[in-house]
């Protein structure tokens, strides 16, 4: 199964593996959403949408549909 940002639980982190270039807006890349960077899920709104994430220092909120396009490698056993 693909593991994406949308599969993270609150407080969990992961490393971005890849994403669908055609769907993801360039703005996300500019804010640091690039392969190899770390993502942390800070908060989720009810119905798990939108998601409030910290990606390499940028604190942003994105919708679930976009989050599902960002594939990550989860980081186990944080803190």
């Amino acid at each position, binding site marked *: 199964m693909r593991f994406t940002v949308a599969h993270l639980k609150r407080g969990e982190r992961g490393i971005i593996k890849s994403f669908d*270039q*055609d769907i993801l*807006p*360039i*703005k*996300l*890349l*500019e*804010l*640091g959403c*690039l392969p190899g960077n770390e993502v942390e899920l*800070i*908060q*989720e*709104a*009810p*119905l798990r*949408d*939108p998601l*409030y994430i910290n990606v*390499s*220092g*940028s*604190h*942003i*909120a*994105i*919708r679930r*549909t*976009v989050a599902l396009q960002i594939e990550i490698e989860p980081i186990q056993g944080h803190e």
Partner: protein
Amino acid sequence: MSKDIKVALIGNPNTGKTSVFNRLTGLNQKVGNYPGITVEKKQGICRLSRGKKAHIVDLPGTYSLNTTSLDESVAVELLLNRNAPDFPDLVVVVSDVENLKRNLLLFTQIKDLRLPAVLVINMADRMKRKGISLDVAALEKKLQTRIALVSTRKNTGIETLKQIIEEYRCLSCQPTIDIKTIDPEYFQRLGKAFPNEDLYKLWVVITQDVNFTPLQKKLPGGEKSFEIKSRQELKKLQHKETIKRYQFINEILKESYAVDLKAARGLRASIDRVLTHRIFGYLIFFVILLTIFQAIFDWSSVPMDAIDAFFASASEWVKGALPEGILTNLIAEGIIAGIGGIVIFIPQIAFLFLFISILEESGYMSRVVFLMDRLMRPFGLSGKSVVPLISGTACAIPAVMATRNIESWKERLITILVTPFMTCSARLPVYLIIISLVIPQGRFLGLSFQALALMMLYLLGFMAAMVSAWALNRILKIPTRRFFMVEMPNYKLPLWKNVFYTVVEKTKSFVYGAGKIILAISIVLWFLGSTGFTEDYNNAETIVSDRVAGQGYTQYSKNYIASNLEAYESALEAETTDASRIADSLEARRGDLEARALSQEIASYRLEHSIIGNMGKFIEPLVQPLGYDWKIGIAVITSFAAREVFVGTLATIYSVGSDEEETIKNRMAAEINEEKGEPLFNLASGVSLLLFYAFAMQCMSTLAIVKRETNSWKWPLLQLAFMSTFAYLTALAAYQILA
């Protein structure tokens, strides 16, 4: 002017760019936490040493040169057009120390345009708290630029920045990366087609189109025979460029920038845990909203009453102090009433903008956007629609402009179309006066009926907005990528100076913008009401005198005379017991009152046959089913330009020719429906009017701004037609059911 150094200030949103601008120029305006708040081009003069000056333009915030919105394209266009009068001698890129990495992305792009660029690293005061260490000298060397470490909050580093600006000629124009490397073959062909142009600049011009269609591709020298890549391909290249830039930046920062994560535990996470909580977050938002509305009403009622009283007495004073004549009447009855109608809004508008700008400055507004996005989506709106909807309770004009940062065109369009349903402050005077006339005193659960009625109207406006958004979402077939992204800036205490200047500026622009229209309309109205061309108008005096002699006074006049006499009689009886003196005084008083009643009847007869009266009679059949007479009809028509004109129009119509210094409310309460012989403003007609104003568009300025923002007449006209029809039908139904 030509000797001044021209400086463009650019930077990511939420970097405190506008605060830097304020510090440099002393000419204050807004700094927003909300992306894209600086919409207009702000300019100012910065005084340097030895009498030199820098002319500074504050550009809208942008994350990169890949523009995705109108605001961003404004910034990029200025940097591309070497012939523009504002084309900068140097660019000051404002960044914030916490997000230096992503701020540098924009910096490298600007540098690659071969413009002299300075880097400002703002919020330096936070470095220690965030565990950040920075080697400025090393970074300056790597980036081949000068760096000013600034804190706008503590006011440090500004002098260094001024000095760097002054020495801008020493700055290097070396680019940072070679754009050719992302696709050598493509750029080689591009270079061949446009041999005289800089490749990176060409690239920015070409990609402007990819993200933001309305900008025309202004490639120098025409299209020539150059194969253009598809959007998809260009986008891939943009991705590649971004990745390349980050590689470059990471390389640079590795040696000069470090964050000690252990030291970097901030308040932010704990505040966020509460404010974005799935239950408490909403509760807090709701409480904040309620508090704001409560405060606005409580705080503004006192100054509003004072303003009202002031203008009433000013009008009286003018009549006494100036020589009699048409101009005096125009000033007293037309102009002063008109200005009063504008000034009375100032307290409310100011308070509303005060709260909104505090919410934005503190960073809370972005949390609201986050909380509300999912709830708004079924209605075809975005979380970002919440800000315009809240601003819409002040005025739809800034609210429509605040939709600019909504990414999806469909969500933005729907927001624009439904925002005018929100109860703006211009509706308030109409609501307040009608509610006080037709809603009975009394309380329900400790709340007065009148306050409840007002709350209902606010709710009704909001529901109308949501329901029509839902319908529009179904009807409109606009293919759209529903992308959504909002930055959640760090919380900060609002800079009070910034808040203050926002309030002043917004209030000023509202007063001048709407004020001029209202003033002009009052003048025209006054003339229309005191001019007439018919026989009836010219011979009003004889006609009315004859009628009074024949049939006696109208019911209104009879009541007026009787009630005044009664009051006079009881006053006399308290003074004296001499019956014959009482009778004499009463007789004299009666003659006095009859003369007044006669002149009032003449005035109202004149008004009825003046130009405006004839217009009113003409449209009366249209408004009669709603329970209005021709005077209200006129007020409805004139307030088509702006709702608040309604009360002013009635004030003007009632005061034309009248000597009485009565408040407009008393005058309205005394109006009789001639057909039914009952008060004109009763529950049925009052509710019908309230509903009409709740739903009708009735605002020219909003139409104009919608036209500008949607770039077509189609949407404002549709909006006008829909809202007016809906308003008419609900008002009609309400009157017919209640009457």
